Structures are given as C-alpha cells and as structure tokens.
C-alpha cells in the first residue's frame, strides 16, 4: 500500500513511473571493508533506505572476557578495531589501573601516548589509501601503505607484532622500548611531513574527488550528537568531542595540540578532519619523543589481579572515535561483565540517516569517510 501511495504522488509530479528494488551490498563487496551486509532499497541509482545486517564475524568477545583474567582481556581487544589495537589495549589497562588506583611511571605514560598517536597515523594512512580506492583512485592505496609500513616496522621492532601488538599490560608495558625506537620515530616524522602534502596534491585538491565528496552524506551537529557519533565523524559536523581534550589520559594532558574540527559535516569535511589529525598526531609525537623520562617500564602487579567490587568506565580516543571499556567487577579475578563501547556501531547507525537520497557512488564515498572497521562493530 505504501508504495502505491508513493507512486501516485510521483506520477503527479513527473508522470514517470519508477519502481523500487532491493539490492544486497555485501557481505562480499569491495566497498564494505570486510563482512558487512547492507540491504539497499534503491530507486534507479537513488538510495531510499540502507539497512545494515551485522554479525557475520561476531566472536562474542564480551562473553569470552567474562571467563578471562584482566591480563588476558587486553589481548582480545586487539581483535576489535584491529587498526587501533594499541589504543584499545591502553583503554583496558587504564581501566584496570584506575580501579586498582595504580599509578604507572611517567615513562610508561609517554610511551603509551607516542605509540597511540603512531597507531592513529597508521590507521589514518590506511584509511586514506582505501578512501581513494573507494572513489576510484587506486594508486592512493599504495602510497598510503608505503607510509604505514614504516610505522608497522617501528611497532614490530618494539612490540614484536605489526597489528595485534598486545604491548600494554595492566601496570605498564610488556617490555621496554627497543633502543632503535626513538631513532626510527625521528626518521619517520620528517618523512611523513614530506609525504602529507603529496597526499593533498594527489587526492585532496583533485576536482573529481572534491565533486564526489563535497555536499555528500551531510550530517548535522544535532544528528551527530543524537546518533552518538564520535571521532572524526562527529568532529567534522562541528561537535567537539575529542576524548584526548576532555578526558585526557596517559601523557596527553602534557602536550599541546588543537582538535581538528570542521562544520560542513559532509564527506569532504570528514576527510579533511582526518588529514588534519595526522598533522596533529605528528605534533604530539614530536613534543614527546625527545623527552621520554627515564624509569621503569612497569610497576609490579599481582600475578592474579582482582579488581575491587564496583563498576569502572574508561574512555579513550581511537582512530575511529570514542572507545569505552565498562567493567563490572564483583571482586573476583574475572570480570562479571565487560562492555566495549565501540565507535563503529554508533557511527554505522547513522549511515541510513545520511546516505538516503544519494546515489550508489555517494553511499560508497560516505561509507569510506565513516571509516568503519567491521570487527569493531561485530564484537
């Protein structure tokens, strides 16, 4: 009945009968960045409704955490948003340390912050490459990965792994940083400073790219707040929500940086916010890299960590937005309930709101700038 009513009104206007149809985008689709399925209702090329169908890679990490000790939970968070695994680890560690009222050494805080910002750059370079690929410029992918490789090498040398690092433990770090760490980071900063303008020349300034992203997927500030958006998605709509500013953790209260903000709220604004964030992350690293204080790389904790009874929440800013860890403890060595507040789920929930009325190509550009990582949504 509804479609009949809709048709009669459109017939009056255009005298042209059109028919809506369903199309399955995913779970195997190049633009859904993993196993996400979108049920699209389309009228010609114009999108009428987007309904995400989730759960293809749900591993029930929250349930698994209920039978793991606090040290063991940390490594599970690597597998949530695997592009900001270090920051996820940090969130759990901070939550446990706060609950235990444990003060970690300054050295640990600074190293965590540097690694966190490197993670953010690594995630954003990958996003930049994939963003270009989604709108059809395939070369960006390789330029993005080239720079990301350097960061991955830094991680590998210090943490032993490139992606799922599990370098943070409650109480500090698993090992001290590698002697080459500072040197390599200092090599990376000028290298990346010289490459970022190249990113702009290749993609940002490109007229086709701007036409594809400007005015596409516009999200207002009110909607960003209402839909619980966070990270670059919310900041591009003018909602200042950087957890690093409002609830600074680790060494972030000691550094100066400006929060990247934009007011346009379209895909291009989200793009620009992420590019600006890479510059800011470089600034943060530069302020800290010369002043890593001497000291221990961890404080001793009990082999079996028991949190006091109560509930604890810790939020951090990952590359995708606000990641929260909510632990309910009954005083045992295992948590009673763990909830990971993933930025991806909230950011994905607004997709239907901003993609409707656009074309299929717009949906792809919007999805790319929302920058979802599916394991983060399917916890």
């Amino acid at each position, binding site marked *: 009945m509804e479609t009949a009513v809709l048709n009669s009104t459109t017939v009056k206007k255009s005298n042209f009968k059109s028919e809506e*149809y369903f*199309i399955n985008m995913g779970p195997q*689709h*190049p*633009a859904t960045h993993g196993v996400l399925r979108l049920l699209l209702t389309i009228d010609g*090329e114009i999108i009428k409704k987007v309904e995400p169908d989730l759960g293809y890679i749900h591993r029930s990490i929250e349930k698994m955490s209920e039978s793991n000790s606090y040290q063991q939970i940390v490594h599970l968070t690597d597998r949530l948003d695997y592009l900001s695994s270090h920051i996820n680890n940090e969130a759990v560690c901070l939550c446990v340390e706060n609950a235990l009222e444990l003060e970690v050494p300054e050295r640990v805080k600074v190293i965590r912050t540097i690694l966190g910002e490197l993670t953010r750059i690594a995630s954003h370079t990958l996003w930049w490459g994939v963003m*270009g*690929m*989604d*709108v*059809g*410029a*395939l*070369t960006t*992918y*390789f*330029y993005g990965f*080239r720079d990301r490789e350097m960061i991955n090498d830094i991680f590998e040398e210090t943490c032993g792994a490139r992606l799922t690092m599990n370098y943070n433990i409650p109480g500090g770090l698993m090992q001290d940083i590698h002697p080459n760490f500072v040197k390599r980071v200092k090599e990376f900063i000028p290298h990346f400073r010289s490459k970022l303008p190249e990113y702009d020349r*290749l*993609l940002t300034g*490109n007229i*086709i*790219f701007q*036409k*594809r992203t400007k005015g596409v997927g516009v999200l207002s500030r009110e909607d960003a707040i209402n839909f619980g958006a966070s990270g670059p998605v919310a900041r591009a709509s003018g909602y200042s929500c950087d957890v690093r500013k409002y609830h600074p953790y680790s060494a972030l209260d000691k550094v100066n940086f400006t929060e990247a903000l934009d007011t346009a709220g379209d895909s291009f604004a989200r793009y620009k916010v992420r590019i600006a964030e890479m510059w800011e992350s470089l600034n943060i690293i530069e302020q800290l890299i010369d002043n890593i204080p001497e000291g221990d790389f961890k404080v001793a904790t009990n082999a079996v960590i028991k949190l006091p009874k109560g509930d604890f929440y810790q939020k951090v800013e990952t590359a995708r937005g606000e990641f929260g860890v909510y632990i309910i403890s009954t005083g045992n060595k295992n948590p009673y309930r763990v909830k990971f507040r993933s930025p991806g789920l909230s950011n994905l929930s607004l997709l239907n709101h901003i993609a409707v009325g656009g*074309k*299929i*190509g*717009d949906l*792809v550009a919007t999805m790319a700038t929302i920058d979802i990582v599916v394991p983060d949504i399917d916890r």
Partner: protein
Amino acid sequence: MNSISNIIDWFINTGVLNMALIALIYLTVFALLGLFLVLLERKVAAWFQLRIGPNRVGYLGLFQTIADALKLVSKELTGTVKADKFLYNLAPYFVIVTSLMALAVFPFTKDLQAFDINIGIFFLIAISSIGVIGILLGGWSSNNKFALIGAMRSGVQTVSYELSVGLSLLTMVILTGSLQLSEIIEVQKSGWLIVQGHIPAIIAFMIYMIAGTAETNRAPFDMVEAESELGAGYHTEYSGMKFAYFFLAEFINMFIIAAIATTIFFGGWLSPFGITESLPWMGLFWFLVKTFVLVFLMMWFRWTFPRLRVDQLLTLEWKYLLPINLVNLVLMAVIVWLNLTIQI
C-alpha cells in the same frame, strides 16, 4: 573434379580467400596486441604505484598475459540459471567483433591498410558505438542487478559521449575536407593537423581524449564496472573466455581510440619533420610510437584520478564538453574560412 576447381577459382578470383587471409592475420595480430596492452597496463600501473608488476612468467614477465589467456581459455564457462541464454552468449561476441572491425580501416603505413573507404571516420564512429550494445545486452541478459545498473550506466555514458567524440572529429574534418583516412594523412604532409589547426585543434584533441576515455569505459569514467560500487558491473556473471572477450575488447578499444587520435591529430604514420620519409616501413614504427604515447596517457589518467559519479559524468558532457565543442566547431570553420591555418 571440375566443380571443385571451379569453386577454388571462384574463391581466388573474387578475392574472398585474400580477404579471409587478411582477416586471419589481423585477428591474430590484434589479439596478441590486446594481450600486450594488458601487460603494458599492468606494468605501467605497477610503476605508478611503487610496485614491480608481473615479473615471473618469462623475461620481465613478458609472457604473463599469455599464461593468463591460457588460463582463461581452460576455465569453465559459468552463468546464471535465469539468464537470457541467447543474448547472454551473444553479448561478448558483439563487443569483440565491433572492436576488431574498427581496426580494418586504419592506415598503419602508406600501403598497409586493409580497407580504404571514403567514409573512414564516419565508419569508425559508427562501429565504435555498436560495441555498447554488447555491453547493454550482457548486463541486461545476465539477470543480475549489479550488472543491470552497470549496463544502464554504460548506455547513458555512451549516448552522451558519442556526441563529443563525433563533434571533435567533425571539427578536424572541416580542416581536412575529407572523411577518407588515407587522404587525411596526405593532408598532414604539410604539418600535423594539431599544428595546422592550432588552438581549435588542441581544444578538439583534449575533448576527444576525455570523451574517448569515456567511450572505452575506463577510469575515471569506469562507471560501467565501478569496482567499488558494483563489484564488476556488467560482466559480473561472465567467466572464462567470455569474460576475456570483454576484457580484451576494452584494451583493443583503448588502442583504437589512441589510433584514431594518432591518425587525425598527429599525422598517422608520418614521421616528425619527414626524417624517415625514404623508408616507408618506418611508418608503422611512427604510428605505433604515437599510438602508445596516447595509450600511456590514458593509463596515466586511469591510475591517477578518482571516478566520477554518474550524474557528474553527464554534467561534464552536457554542460562543459558539448558547448565548448560547438563553439570550437565554429571557431575552426572561421579559421579555415579566413585561412589562418599554419602550414609548414
């Protein structure tokens, strides 16, 4: 016995045998050329993207695409159950045959031309727009929504960009006064047309290259395939050799677009400043050099630019290329009328 020799005589006398032989040679040469273009594309893409590219099969990977072709030939032909079988099977041949037909009229050297008709350019424009019917058929008959969207986009795209290709070539025809390709080359002995026609010729060339890239459905106009939007677009449901026909046709079309530009704008087989005029076979060399430079230009576009959106594609055509083209046409006419061309 008598009747058989009569038939053989008939074949030889009417030239059917000759034609068949020439067709066979063209088919082989251009199938190989298509394969070479695929390899070139992969290599060029790799060099743009900080990679090495195929380097395993043969010296520097020269036989990579031959191996790929063998693989594709030996693959099973799958299809959808609910496809319109007849049209589904017909579509790839439509595409490949039209692109091979277009090759017949090119003068590769002064004497190496299969078919010198007096409406050469007209023939090329006509033939190159038949190919899209194959794409439409393929996308529509495979009964897949992604393929259908791709096919419809290709229809929209070709209908609009045909105009620009035609008009920019028409601009040059005003200058040459002939549609016959061999005559167009004769005219260019007193300077390549892009020099003779200077400003309007350069504008026509730019429009031609943009519209030509769109005609071949290559990035930044690859709306039809649009990997990140439609998966594989119109050839989603094709496999094996049928897919290879689409694939090969795209590359041969790219060669054709570049070859037309070479013939019309850059003097075809004529050497620059006539430096090898005494060696007629060098014409083939110069023709291929010019063509491959233009092919490279198209690859450069593809590996640098993002894809346009389908409505922006139409905006570009109807709001920019077409008006400029019409003005350019008048400009060229004025220049020819006032005899302002540059003759060397």
